[in-house]
């Protein structure tokens, strides 16, 4: 029986690897379909035809696309992400510090939102139909139904404009003390936590409610177990798989959320770098950023699936 799970997990990982290849392919081709010749765009209008031809040769632009894709892949495997068009710095150097900033933002958000969302989701499911449950449900539907930038603007209006507790903009370099640090991270983290938690609360609540409607929970009820014992002892251990699945899936919303949040708060992370790169059409930079985001996203949804497979007692 054990090998059945292993097979399924391996199969899922295999699919993830194939998907990754397709995604890399898609990112590469979307960015190399750019209208106009990259070499002449780079050199500007005053360039001589010889110079353009020389640059095309140097950049391997005359080679077939599939060969360039393979060359790019080989470069990736060696850790060579290419050189930025805009300022001719190695992409890896541009991304390095930014990636750390984004990971910090994502990490703090995860640490805050997971306990918050699990508590709210599980208690809402326990008190299903109560005023508390309905308030939590309506609030989370509300947050899911509006764009992330609206959550961000409302948070700025509340905390920075009316209450004047926090600054509206972030600048990581100015952090000298712990209070500075808190003030800088507060707005982006609050916004992201709202967005992520809303998803997580809904999924957690649904997972627990589904478990609560199973026959063995009814049995626990009939034998006279208290409500908290019924949930904590009987339902939760079995709902753990679906809940971890929900957490991983919700965290994948970080990818979309972080793009908006870094832009609105001017946070020096990798998403802001990518949005700026799109504005200047800096292809190697866009490719690398897109790849990092896809990797993170793919990792989270694969992790969610693997947890779902492993936690299914029928397969164990």
């Amino acid at each position: 029986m054990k090998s059945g799970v292993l097979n399924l997990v391996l199969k899922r990982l295999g699919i993830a690897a194939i998907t990754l290849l397709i995604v890399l392919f898609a990112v590469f081709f979307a960015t190399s379909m750019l209208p106009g010749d990259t070499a002449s765009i780079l050199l500007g209008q005053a360039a001589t035809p010889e110079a353009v031809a020389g640059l095309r040769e140097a950049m391997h632009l005359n080679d077939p696309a599939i060969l360039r894709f393979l060359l790019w892949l080989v470069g990736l495997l060696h850790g060579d992400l290419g050189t930025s068009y805009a300022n001719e710095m190695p992409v890896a150097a541009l991304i390095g510090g930014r990636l750390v900033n984004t990971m910090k933002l994502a990490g703090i958000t995860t640490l805050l939102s997971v306990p918050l969302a699990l508590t709210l989701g599980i208690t809402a499911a326990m008190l299903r139909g109560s005023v508390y449950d309905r308030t939590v449900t309506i609030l989370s539907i509300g947050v899911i139904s509006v764009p992330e930038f609206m959550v961000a603007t409302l948070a700025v209006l509340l905390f920075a404009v009316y209450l004047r507790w926090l600054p509206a903009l972030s600048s990581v370099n100015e952090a000298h003390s712990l209070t500075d640090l808190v003030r800088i991270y507060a707005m982006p983290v609050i916004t992201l936590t709202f967005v992520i938690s809303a998803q997580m609360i809904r999924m957690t609540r649904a997972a627990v409610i589904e478990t609560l409607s199973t026959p063995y929970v009814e049995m626990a009820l009939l034998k006279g177990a208290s409500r908290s014992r019924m949930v904590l002892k009987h339902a939760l251990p079995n709902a753990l798989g679906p809940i971890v699945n929900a957490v991983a899936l919700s965290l994948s919303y970080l990818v979309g959320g972080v793009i908006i949040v870094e832009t609105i708060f001017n946070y020096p992370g990798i998403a802001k770098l990518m949005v700026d790169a799109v504005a200047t059409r800096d292809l190697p930079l866009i490719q690398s950023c897109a790849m990092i985001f896809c990797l993170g996203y793919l990792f989270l949804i694969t992790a969610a699936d693997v947890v779902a497979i492993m936690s299914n007692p029928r397969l164990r």
Partner: protein
Amino acid sequence: MTIARATTSRRSFLGHSYSLVGVVAALVILAWTLIAILAPHVTPHSIGDIVDDDYFGPMRQGLWLGSDYLGRDMLSRVLMGARYTVGISLAAVSIACFSGVVLGMIAAVTGGWLDTCLSRFLDAMNSIPSKLFGLVVVAAVGSSIPVLILTLAIIYIPGAYRFARALAVNINTMDFMTAARVRGESIIYLVGSEILPNIIRPVLADFGLRFVFIVLLLSGLSFLGLGLQPPLADWGALVRENIGGLPFAAPAVIIPSLAIASLTISVNLLIDNLPQKIRDRDA
């Protein structure tokens, strides 16, 4: 058999009393649709005219929603923005759902390698985060209304496909499908006359949800400056261009956000308040 099922469901559909929330939500959606169609005729000022001496003006008589960062009438701009937000999203969701549902039904009916290849490919597409996909496409081909519609549609085809296929696979195992196959009916007949009438209600509910996703994504892209380009402005672009008014809590920043929220929340509430029979996923 199919016809009998369809008529009974229609009767219960009409006979059902809707909840108040559902009716209000439907009215809000109807109002925005009318505004989107009639926008040029109902705007009090031309959207490009500078009508206020002050920028980020407050709400007052004549300028009911205040003025924007150039002193233009915000009410006119929001009304006109409805046309772009609703229009582009509706076009995109129609393409996405039509293609996704047709492909999903065909995959379910044919099965075999076509089903496997299509499912694998679309699952892979689904593993690209939607905002990122939008960013990369806009970086590659630039932003225009047709590009936006197609991009948004392509991003949401995999979801529509997965949903329709899952429903169609269930129908496919029914006896009347076997009977139709034995009669030697064509795929077009199987898909159009046997499967579609049986999955159309949940598919329509899914259409509404996907419309919300598309409105949110379009607004997000426009907010990043990668959606609709000036002088055109949808609601996301209106928030972007007026973001400078945020420290003064100018209505110009808040109103377009509220417009988006009113539309997306209404669609969600309408779907949630539809009679169980209509949104039942197992049909």
